[in-house]
C-alpha cells in the first residue's frame, strides 16, 4: 500500500476492510475477564463495518453495475507489480452484502453461545479477523491481494475449529488447513504463471482478461487446472471435498455458519471472478469436467447425506450437493448459469448458515446431534422446530424461498451450455448432450435433497421427544437467537419471492463479462 496515496485513505473500501482488524487490535488491549466489553466491542466493530459497507452499497451506481466501482489502484508490492487494487461490481456486491450481514449476526449469536472452552475475547477477535479476510477477498482486484486475503481467513478458521470445536476437532482443523493450503499452493503457482506467461507481468484482475489470451492453449489448460484444484478444494468439489464434512461437523456453530455462508463462496467466487474471465478458452475445455464433477457432487453428496446419523454432518454433506449445483451452473459458462451460481451462493450461504445455527442451538439444548436420539423438537421448542422446517424447505429448493433460485436456474442453464458442439474429453460426447444428461441428473438430485432433508426434519422435529429428554426443560428460541436469525429468515423469504434483488445486480456485470469471455 502506498501510504502516501490519497486514494487509499479516502476510499471507504479501505475502512470497510480494515475496521474489523482495528477493532480486533483494540480488543487485544482489553483484559480477557471483561467479556461484556469484548462482546460490545466486537458487535460495534462489525456494525461499523456493516455501516461503511452499506454506505458503499448505497453509493454504488446500480445502473452501471457492470463496471467496477470505487476503484482504488495504488502500489503495494512494486517489486512484483502487485498493487492494491480494490473495487466493487455486481459480482462482488452480493458477496460483500452477505458477509456484512452474517458477521454481526454471528457476533450477536455468540452473546450467550460462546462455545466451550470459553474465552470470548479470542473467539470474537477471530471472527473480526475473518471479517477482514472475507471482505478483502471480495473487493480485491489483484491476484496477489486476493490470494493474501483468501489466506487470511485460514488461520482464524483453523483456530476456531481447533479450539472451540467438537470432540474430533483437531483432526478436522488440520485437515481443513492442509487441504486449503494445498489448494493455495497450486493457486499461487497458477497466478504466477499467468503473471509471466501473459507477458504483461501484472497481477491485475482488470487487465489480465485481455492479456492472458496470448497464452498458448496448452499452458492455459495447465494454469486453469491449477486454479481448478485450488478453488475446487475451497468450493468444495468432489473428490476434494472430504475436509468439509469434518470441518463443519467439528466447528463451533458460528464457525460452521461463517464457513458455510461465506468461506465456501470464496472458491466459487474465484472461478467466476478469476479463472473464467481470465482463461475462458481453457474454461471451455474444462467445462465438461467441471460439470461432471459437479453432478457427481450433487448425487454423491446427497447419497452421503442419506447415510448420516448426525444432524450437523448431514447438513455438512448437503453443502457438497448444493455447491454442486453452483458448480454445474458455472460449468455452463453462460450468463444465465453464472447468475444462477451467484444466486445459489448467496442462497446457500443464508440457508445452510441458518441450518447450522439451528443445529448449534439444538446441540446446546440436547447436548447431542444424533438424529435417532432427537425428536419432537416441535413439541418442546415449537418456534425452533418451525424455523428448522423453513430452513430445510428452503434448502431443498422450495420455490418461494431463496434456495430455489440457486437450483432451478442452474438446472435450466445446464440445458444450453456454451460451446454446445464441443466434443468433450468424455468419450467425445458433445457438450450439449453431456450437459443435458447433467441437467436430468441434477433434477433427480432435487429428489434426494428432499429425501434427506425431510428425513432430518421428520426425525428431529416431528414425533415426540425420546424418553431421555422428555422431562428436560428445552427452552425455545431466545432473544439473541431471534436477533441473529430473523434477518436471515427474512432474507430467505424475500429473496425467494423477489429474486431480482440479486439477479438485477449480477446480470449487468456477468453478461458483458461472459460476452468478453465468449468473444475472446
Amino acid at each position, binding site marked *: *500500500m502506498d501510504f502516501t496515496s490519497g486514494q487509499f485513505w479516502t476510499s471507504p473500501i479501505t475502512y470497510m476492510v480494515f475496521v474489523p482488524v482495528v477493532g480486533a487490535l483494540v480488543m487485544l488491549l482489553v483484559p480477557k475477564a471483561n467479556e461484556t466489553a469484548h462482546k460490545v466491542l466486537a458487535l460495534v466493530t462489525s456494525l461499523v463495518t456493516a455501516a461503511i459497507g452499506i454506505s458503499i452499497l448505497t453509493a454504488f451506481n446500480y445502473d452501471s453495475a457492470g463496471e467496477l466501482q470505487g476503484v482504488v489502484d495504488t*502500489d*503495494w*508490492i*512494486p*517489486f*512484483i507489480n502487485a498493487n492494491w487494487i480494490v473495487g466493487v461490481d455486481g459480482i462482488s456486491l452480493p458477496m460483500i452484502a452477505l458477509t456484512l450481514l452474517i458477521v454481526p449476526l454471528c457476533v450477536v449469536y455468540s452473546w450467550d453461545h460462546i462455545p466451550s472452552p470459553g474465552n470470548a475475547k479470542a473467539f470474537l477477535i477471530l471472527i473480526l479477523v475473518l471479517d477482514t479476510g472475507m471482505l478483502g477477498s471480495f473487493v480485491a482486484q489483484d491476484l*496477489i491481494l486476493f*490470494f*493474501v*486475503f*483468501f*489466506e*487470511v481467513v*485460514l*488461520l482464524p478458521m*483453523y*483456530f476456531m475449529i*481447533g*479450539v472451540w470445536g467438537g470432540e474430533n*476437532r*483437531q483432526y478436522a*482443523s*488440520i485437515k481443513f*488447513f*492442509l487441504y486449503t*493450503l*494445498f489448494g493455495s*499452493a*497450486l493457486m*499461487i*503457482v497458477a497466478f*504466477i*504463471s499467468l*503473471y*509471466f*506467461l501473459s507477458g504483461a507481468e501484472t497481477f491485475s484482475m482488470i487487465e489480465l482478461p485481455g492479456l492472458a489470451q496470448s497464452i498458448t492453449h496448452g499452458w492455459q489448460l495447465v494454469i486453469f487446472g491449477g486454479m481448478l484444484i485450488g478453488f475446487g478444494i475451497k468450493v468444495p468439489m468432489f473428490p476434494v471435498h472430504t475436509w468439509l464434512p469434518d470441518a463443519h461437523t467439528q466447528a463451533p456453530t458460528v464457525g460452521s455458519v461463517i464457513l458455510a455462508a461465506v468461506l465456501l463462496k470464496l472458491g466459487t467466487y474465484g472461478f467466476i471472478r478469476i479463472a473464467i474471465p481470465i482463461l475462458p478458452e481453457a474454461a471451455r475445455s474444462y467445462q465438461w469436467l467441471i460439470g461432471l464433477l459437479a453432478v457427481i457432487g450433487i448425487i454423491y453428496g446427497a447419497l452421503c447425506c442419506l447415510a448420516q446419523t448426525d444432524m450437523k454432518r448431514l447438513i455438512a454433506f448437503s453443502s457438497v450437493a448444493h455447491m454442486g449445483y453452483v458448480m454445474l451452473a458455472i460449468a455452463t459458462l453462460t450468463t444465465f448459469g453464472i447468475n444462477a451460481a451467484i444466486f445459489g451462493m448467496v442462497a446457500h450461504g443464508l440457508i445452510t448458515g441458518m441450518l447450522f445455527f439451528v443445529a448449534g442451538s439444538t446441540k446446546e439444548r440436547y447436548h447431542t446431534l444424533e438424529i435417532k436420539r432427537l425428536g419432537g423438537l416441535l413439541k418442546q421448542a415449537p418456534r425452533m422446530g418451525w424455523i428448522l422446517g423453513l430452513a430445510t424447505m428452503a434448502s431443498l429448493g422450495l420455490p418461494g424461498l431463496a434456495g430455489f433460485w440457486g437450483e432451478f436456474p442452474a438446472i435450466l442453464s445446464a440445458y444450453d451450455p456454451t460451446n454446445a458442439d464441443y466434443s468433450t474429453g468424455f468419450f467425445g460426447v458433445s457438450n450439449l448432450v453431456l450437459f443435458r444428461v447433467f441437467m436430468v441428473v441434477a433434477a433427480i438430485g432435487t429428489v434426494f435433497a428432499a429425501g434427506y432433508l425431510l428425513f432430518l426434519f421428520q426425525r428431529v422435529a416431528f414425533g415426540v421427544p425420546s424418553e431421555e429428554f422428555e422431562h428436560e426443560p428445552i427452552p425455545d428460541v431466545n432473544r439473541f437467537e431471534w436477533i441473529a436469525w430473523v434477518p436471515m429468515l427474512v432474507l430467505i423469504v424475500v429473496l425467494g419471492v423477489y429474486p431480482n434483488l440479486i439477479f438485477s445486480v449480477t446480470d449487468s456485470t456477468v453478461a458483458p463479462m461472459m460476452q468478453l469471455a465468449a468473444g475472446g
Partner: protein
Amino acid sequence: MLLGFEAPSIDFHALAPEIVVTATLAVLILVDAFTPKQAKSAQSSIAGLGLLLALVPVVTLAVDGGTRVMFEGAFVVDTFSLVLTGLFLVSGYVVILLSQTYIAEGDYWEGEYYQLLLASILGMMVMASARDLITVFIALELLSIPAYMLAAWRKRDLRSDEAGIKYYLMGVFASAVLLYGMSLLYGLTGTTMLSEIATKLAGEDVPSAAVLAIVFIVVGFGFKVSAVPFHTWAPDTYEGAPTPVTAFLAVASKAAGFVALMIVVFGAFPFRVDIVEPLFWALAVATMFVGNLIALRQTNVVRMLAYSGIAQAGYMLAPLAVAGTVGDAAVQSILIYLMIYATMNLGAFAVVIAASRKTRSGELTSFAGLVRYAPGLAVAMAMFLFSLAGIPPLGGWFAKFGIFKTLVEADSAAGYSLAIIVGVNSVIALFYYARVAKTMIMDDVPDGDLSPVQVPVSLRAAISITLVLTVVFGILPQLVAGLTDNATLLSAVAVP
C-alpha cells in the same frame, strides 16, 4: 609484481561495518580482561551496541549507493553485500538479546561468548563481500571456528559436547572437501578471483576435474546450509547446543552458507549451469522432502525446528536450480527468503527459549497448553510457525511466493517441477508446524501448573521485534523486497 609493493587503495567507508565490529571485538576483550567474573553483564550490552553501531555505515553506504570494489575485486561492497551485512548485524543483535539471560543465568563464560559471537558475525560480513576464493575461505573459517566453540558452550553437558564435536568434525571435513575442490579449481584456472574463474570455465567443454571441483565446492557449502545429504550434523547440533546458539546457527550461519553458495554459483559458475542446475535441483528436492518428512516425526521442538530449517534450506536451494535462466532474480528471491526466514525463525527460537524457562525442556509435550499460562508466547509462537509454513498475511508467504515466482519465471521443466514440489512440501510442513501450534493452544497443560512464565526484557524485546517484523513483512512485503531491488551478482561477471 612480486617485488614491487603497491599499497592497495582502501575505502574505509566501505569497510566501516567490519571495522566497527572488529573494534567492538577488541573493546570486548579489553573490558573482559578488566572486569571481575561476576560483572560481565556489560559484555552483552557492548556487543549489542557495537552491532547496532555497525549498522550506521551500512545505512550510509546504502544511501550512498553504487558499488565499491577493493583488493582487485576480491572484496566488493554493493547492494547484495549491504543487505546481507545488515541482515547479519540485525540477526546478531537479536541473538544477543536471546542470549543475555540464558548465558548470564547459566554461569557460562559471558565474556568469551560475545567475543566469539562477534567474531563469527564478522566472518559472515566478510563473506557477503568476498569475491575471491581465498577471501571466501577465510570468511568461512572465521565464521565457523567460533561457532564450533559456541555449540559446545555448555561444556559440562555431554549433549553440548556432542553437539560441538559433531559440528566440528563434520565442519572441518566439509571444509577439507571444499578446499580440495577449490584447489582443483585453482589448478584449472590459475586464479582465485571468481569472475576470472567464471570466464575461464565458460565455453563448450570443461575438463572432468572442473566438474569434480564444482561438485566438491557445492558440497562444502551445502554442508553449511545443511542441504541433504550433508545435513546430518544439524539436528544433533541444534538439539545439543545452547538454544541461542542454535538460533544463531540456524539463521545467521545458514544465511552465510547461502551467501557463499550464491557467490560461487553466480560468481564462478554462471556459465556452467549445465552442472550447477541439475545439482541444485537434486539437492533441493532431497532437502525439502527429507527435512519435512523427518520433521513430521520429531517430538522435540528444537529438533523439529532443526529439520524445519533443513526443509527451509531446500526451498532456498530451489531458485539456484534455475539460476541460469532467471539470473539475479534467483539471488533476490533467496535474499528475500533469508531476511524473512531470519525474522520468523529467530522469533520461534526466542519463544522456545522463553517458554523453556519454565518447562526446562524442549519436548513438545511440555509445551502443551502454553496458551493457558502464557497466551502471548503461545500466540506469538503460532504466528512464527504459521509464518514458517507460509500462511498469509504473515511474512513467510512472501518468502515462499518469491521462490514460486522465480521457479515459474524460469518457464522450464525444472522450474515447474520444483514449484510443484515446493507446494507439496509446504503442505507436509504445515502438518508439523500446526501440530506445535495445536499442542500449545488446543491441548491441556500436562501437570496443571498454570503459574506464568517470567520473560526477561531482552527476550520480550526479541520476540516483539521479530513478531512485528514478521507481520509487517507479510502485509507490506515491499519493505523487504525493495531492499533487494538492485541486488546482483551477475553484473560483475563479464560475458566471454
